[in-house]
């Protein structure tokens, strides 16, 4: 076994990786700053007008919180969102809103001995869930780790080249749908909550974009729409869940939701469907015949940062 060294000066890949990230971030941001010169800003101040499409509708001010809506009001809200999205995207959109399933206990298992770091799950997730392509939002991060350590801080999210590499293993991380979620507790407006099948959802129509949940999440699972998400028209998934994969507006937080618009209807999450190795196992723990129930019984499993008492529903095992 390798020596797990905590001395920071000896973190091998960190320098290169961080430089790469910084350079990338800088490039993106520099071009943005350049475009907005001083004169343009002054002109904007003089005009001080905002594009009509951005103006919030008056009645949006007084709309109800999702949890306070009656089923009939939910239908109206869904129809409204459908219309809004159709206008914005110029596509035929079908907004769905499947209810949480009674007596379901959704969990996700990840087999660390199978995952090969291909990131097929990441690509499938981005497509399924209408994540912005520029700047790129990805719910799943895959860490490339040295065999011999479980220290997440030593993982590399920005690895390239042919996988799997010798001496490495791969650890995908996405929202852990905690049973004791720090993000839900932190949200000042209850825009995010836990549904009875265990999925932590975000209402993009209610989120105020304060990003406190992002600070609270110990798994770095939440992403923010720093700008209006850009998705090529032909790549938009037109079946969009109200609380899941709908195209997001700018200024709100989003994250993995176990593909609830699929899984509540009996389908598999997109990431599991795309996984070439069978490392991903999603299912209902209350169903004794499900893969996850069998893994729970037969394998030794663990969760990340158990000491934080977040009780994740996303676990890891060695198959």
């Amino acid at each position, binding site marked *: 076994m390798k020596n797990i060294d905590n001395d920071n000066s000896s973190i091998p890949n960190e320098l290169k990786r961080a430089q790469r990230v910084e350079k990338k971030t800088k490039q993106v941001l520099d071009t943005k700053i350049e475009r907005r010169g001083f004169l343009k800003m002054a002109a904007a101040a003089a005009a001080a007008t905002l594009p009509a499409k951005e103006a919030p509708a008056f009645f949006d001010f007084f709309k109800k919180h999702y949890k306070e809506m009656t089923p009939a009001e939910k239908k109206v809200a869904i129809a409204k969102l459908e219309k809004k999205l159709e206008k914005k995207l110029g596509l035929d959109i079908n907004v769905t809103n499947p209810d949480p399933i009674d007596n379901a206990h959704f969990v996700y298992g990840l087999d660390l001995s199978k995952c090969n770091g291909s990131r097929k799950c990441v690509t499938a997730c981005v497509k399924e869930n209408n994540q912005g392509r520029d700047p790129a939002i990805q719910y799943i991060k895959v*860490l490339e780790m040295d065999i011999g350590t479980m220290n997440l801080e030593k993982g590399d999210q920005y690895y390239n080249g042919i996988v799997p590499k010798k001496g490495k293993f791969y650890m995908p991380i996405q929202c852990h749908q905690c049973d004791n979620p720090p993000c839900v507790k932190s949200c000042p407006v209850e825009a995010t909550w836990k549904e009875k099948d265990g999925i932590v959802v975000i209402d993009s129509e209610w989120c105020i974009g304060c990003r406190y949940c992002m600070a609270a999440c110990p798994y770095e699972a939440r992403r923010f729409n720093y700008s209006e998400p850009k998705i090529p028209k032909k790549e938009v998934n037109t079946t969009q869940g109200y609380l899941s994969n709908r195209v997001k507006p700018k200024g709100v937080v989003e994250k993995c939701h176990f593909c609830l618009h699929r899984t509540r209807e009996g389908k598999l999450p997109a990431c599991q469907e795309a996984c070439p190795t069978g490392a991903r196992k999603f299912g209902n723990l209350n169903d004794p015949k499900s893969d996850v129930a069998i893994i729970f019984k037969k394998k030794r499993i663990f969760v990340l940062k158990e000491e934080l008492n977040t009780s994740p529903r996303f676990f890891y095992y060695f198959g």
Partner: protein
Amino acid sequence: MISYINYWINIIKFAFIGGKKFYLWTGFLSVLIGLGFAAYTQQFQNGLIVTNLSDQVSWGAYIANFTFLVGVAAAAVLLVVPTYIYKRDDVKEVVLIGELLAISAIVMCLLFIIVDMGRPDRFMHIIPFIGRLNFPASILAWDVVVLNGYLILNLHIPGYLLYKMYKNQNPSKKYYMPFVIISIFWAVSIHTVTAFLYSGLGGRPYWNSAILAPRFLISAFASGPALMIIIFALINHFTNLKVKQSVSNLLLSILKVTLPINMFLLGSELFKEFYTDSTHALSAHYLFFGINGHAMLAPFIWSSILFSFIAMAIIFIPKLRNNKKILYVACVLTFIGIWIEKGMGLIIPGFIPTPIGDLVEYTPSMIEFLVSVGIWSIGGLIFTLMVKVAIAIQTGELREKKKTA
């Protein structure tokens, strides 16, 4: 009712009419506000993409300034207690200015929160009953309550006293003393709750420290008096109100206690981080020494510590502190030192490295800088105008004309 409307007309008129220096100063602030507004227009249209924030470092300059200013607001209590509890007449002359400083600071805090929001158009959602305030679970919800409460308390107390003074009437204690007592505890609560925002997060070990709230309060009680000493010197220089030397002496003696305690608490925190040397010390490593050459914040935090030590040397050596100019230097160094420590030194390293080991550095973008300058200028302008009126009422320059028979 008519006389109340007249009162407002008179004070507003008075607030905006002044000499050349007054117009130069307010004009200068207005230009900065204009620039800040222009920058914010860009941000409102394009989203927070115009900032240098990222998913990794999701809070930056706005929240750092917010956190610091909550401390400035809380520091008003250092004038309120000597005035109303210990009945110090010399402090009583300036307590209103302290309360007006608190109002300005809270206004800046609220503005910094609004510009940090991704969806400022949904601000209604945080208003109790109209929206859905997640109270008491969310500490941010607590912050909304305590900050707005503190603002209302501080609007009421000086507002009532100044109005009575303007009318040449004696204020009735029952209309302000209960609120004064509440405001003393409330001042402590605003900075405690703001510290709990950070210290309550188990996933951010750098913030998850029990001494964060005491550190916040003590640093506020150091930066606050430092700022007030400078403000009172300026008021002495530019206005008819002559602040007594004993007030500055009181503030200085507070500084003599709080500045060393602040350094002691910082030292305790650093001992825990570096002696234990667990992986949780990475943020502190990053802040002070950098990680693998990434040391953007290190020069700032070391200058902050240097500033604090220079300031301490000045206030403890009688020869130096008795020279007013050198004392003001100490105050400026204290103020800037704590601003760095609370802002860049506390908020940003909490995100570096991220909970799963990503390392992305952060410096504010031009837009963030301009918006922040704009908000500070709004605070400066509000404070200037309010203090101008308050001093005129206090010195008797601006009062209701006595009806002569």
